[in-house]
């Protein structure tokens, strides 16, 4: 039983990461009907920004002067903002020119952008091809509770994800920019006619999605203690898969899809004998199953094609 709970905790943690990436995919798809295939790489970029900021703070001696509970959130927020800005920048440079072009073009362009980001990261870090050690910023303690080992950093990760998702929902549901985002996602042209600045709203959407993605990248780094330049490829594909399973374009679906993928992977590794190397295979089989039998996902609306 405790084994089951233990694995359940791991699954939820993994699911949180996928959810954060999937929310980005859903936001972008809602805003522009576009799938940003390099989103996973943008997320990992967030983790690499942490590396840079950490080294910078260390060089400036801030780590000694300030207590950890100030500099850890500070670095994280900075990395989030920077990643968000980069995400909005990428949208402006690579996605916007294809707004009225055939869909194939933006698809291939974003895949190529992913390659550009990966290679830039690899080339600009010393020994970039090797895994980089992620700084241990969260307290490394653990306690047992009812026979289940709980790590403090995992608890913080989970709480942070919950907080961020709640904040994002509040932002989307309660604020002015949030209602603009929702309006654009419902009908871009109608929103434009109502006087909503569409470019700015799209930029805000990409900022928001990329900033949340940066957190996902940081979580991946904090959980594995290492990051590698090409983690974004897998992260992006998994995040997109989670979004598809939940229903592309539906932000709530991201949570369900992320959790499903997290559970499938963790349980396949834990309870199928010899299944550990094949977790990705199981996850993708589930995704392909969903795509074939329920392409609109769990919460997505069924789309009828119009001529």
């Amino acid at each position, binding site marked *: 039983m405790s084994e089951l709970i233990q694995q359940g905790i791991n699954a939820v943690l993994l699911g949180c990461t996928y959810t954060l990436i999937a929310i980005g995919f859903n936001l972008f798809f809602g805003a522009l009907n576009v799938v940003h295939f390099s989103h996973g790489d943008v997320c990992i970029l967030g983790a690499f920004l942490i590396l840079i900021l950490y080294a910078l703070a260390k060089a400036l001696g801030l780590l000694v002067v300030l207590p950890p509970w100030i500099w850890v959130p500070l670095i994280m927020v900075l990395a989030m903002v920077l990643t968000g800005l980069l995400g909005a920048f990428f949208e402006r440079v690579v996605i916007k020119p294809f707004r009225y072009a055939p869909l194939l*073009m933006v698809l291939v362009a974003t895949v*190529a952008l992913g*390659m550009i980001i990966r*290679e830039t990261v690899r080339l600009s870090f010393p020994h970039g091809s090797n895994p980089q050690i992620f700084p241990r910023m969260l307290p490394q303690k653990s306690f047992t509770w009812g026979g289940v080992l709980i790590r403090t950093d995992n608890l913080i990760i989970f709480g942070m994800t919950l907080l961020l998702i709640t904040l994002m929902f509040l932002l989307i549901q309660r604020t002015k920019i949030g209602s603009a985002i929702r309006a654009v996602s419902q009908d871009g042209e109608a929103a434009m006619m109502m006087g909503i600045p569409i470019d700015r709203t799209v930029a805000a959407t990409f900022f928001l999605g990329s900033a949340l993605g940066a957190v996902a990248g940081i979580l991946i780094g904090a959980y594995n203690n290492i990051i590698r330049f090409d983690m974004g490829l897998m992260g992006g594909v998994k995040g997109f*898969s989670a979004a*598809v399973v939940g229903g592309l374009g539906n932000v709530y679906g991201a949570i369900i899809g992320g959790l499903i993928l997290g559970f499938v992977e963790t349980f396949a590794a834990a309870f199928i004998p010899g299944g550990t190397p094949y977790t*990705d295979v199981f996850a993708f089989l589930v995704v392909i199953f969903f*795509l074939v039998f329920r392409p609109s996902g769990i919460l997505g609306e069924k789309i009828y094609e119009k*001529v």
Partner: protein
Amino acid sequence: MLKSISKGLLLLAVEVLFFGLFVFFMKANQTSTVVLCLLLFVGIGLLFRFWKKGNESLSCLFREGKGLARGGFVVMLLALPFVFRDSPYLIHICVMAGLYAILALGLNFQLGSTNVVNFATAASYGIGAYTSALLAVHYGVSFWLGLFISGCTASLFGLILGFPCMKTKDYYLSLVTIAFGLIVYALLVNFSWTGGPNGIANIPSPSFLGHSFRDPLHVFGVELPPQSNYFYLVFLFTAGALVVAHRLHHSRVGLTWNAIREDEIAARCQGIDVTWYKMLAFCIDAFFGGVTGTVYAHYIGFISPENFAFIVSVVVVTMVILGGMDNVFGVIIGAILLTILPEKLRAVEDFRLLLYGVIVVAMLMFRPQGLFPQRLRTYRKGKP
């Protein structure tokens, strides 16, 4: 009579000039020479772009002497191993360019003709390579039989991949193909009978009529390095693939694929069996990939999953886009350019993938139809 002979001579002179430039470029060792050559090529291209009269008369010349032009081209290509016989490395580059050209031609059926963005080229490439390598290493199956078997196996997997792809489109379809590629990669790394991450080594070289491809080739009393065996083999295969692709493009099938690309629903309303034709594209692409993989495996003699990672698929997509989608010759030129350039520009070797990414984005933005855009089909009486 005299006029046509002089025209033919002029044509051959132009071809020889370009061939000489190409050889000089390939043999150039210093980066500065390579860059100079590249600038020269770009300059010639731009010159003919703006010098309308020269462009017209040259293309007219080539159109009139079509047979001669093609014959001269083929003879010069066949002579390449003689020219490069001192440096097997250059022949190796040409072999790789040919292999990538076949891969790109295969992908072109989907990406170019049908608008199916398939990111699983590396998967069929890998399946073909592993099939024939395993057969050859464990059961001693000959290269030629393995070629056929691995092509069919890859096709079968293409069919299997096609099933979920028929139910999906656009982004979802690409997701399925990416997932398929990653699954194949993960399986190749983790299965023990495929050699795991270490791959398969000591794959035997093929032999033809008692002549092993590992031995130097003797033609007209000249000893050519062993790579030239493969050069001629790949040349033959590329020519075959080119003919198949060209014929398909100009047949009903190619036209049907284009109809599906333009509007799938409209095509369906015209009575086109969209599923069948899309499946056909998947299978042919996979077959090309499988054959290429086999040749690669036996040529290099060692394969590992790294040779068939996702990035290979993206590289092939880049080649198709650079060359010009749905233009058979353009695709081949794209493949050759993107294989040779990084090899010649050693200084930017590390930036190769970055360069590919930038090329794709720049091409899509500024010249989405590629270097050589698809031309409208011309139909004449009595000729298909």
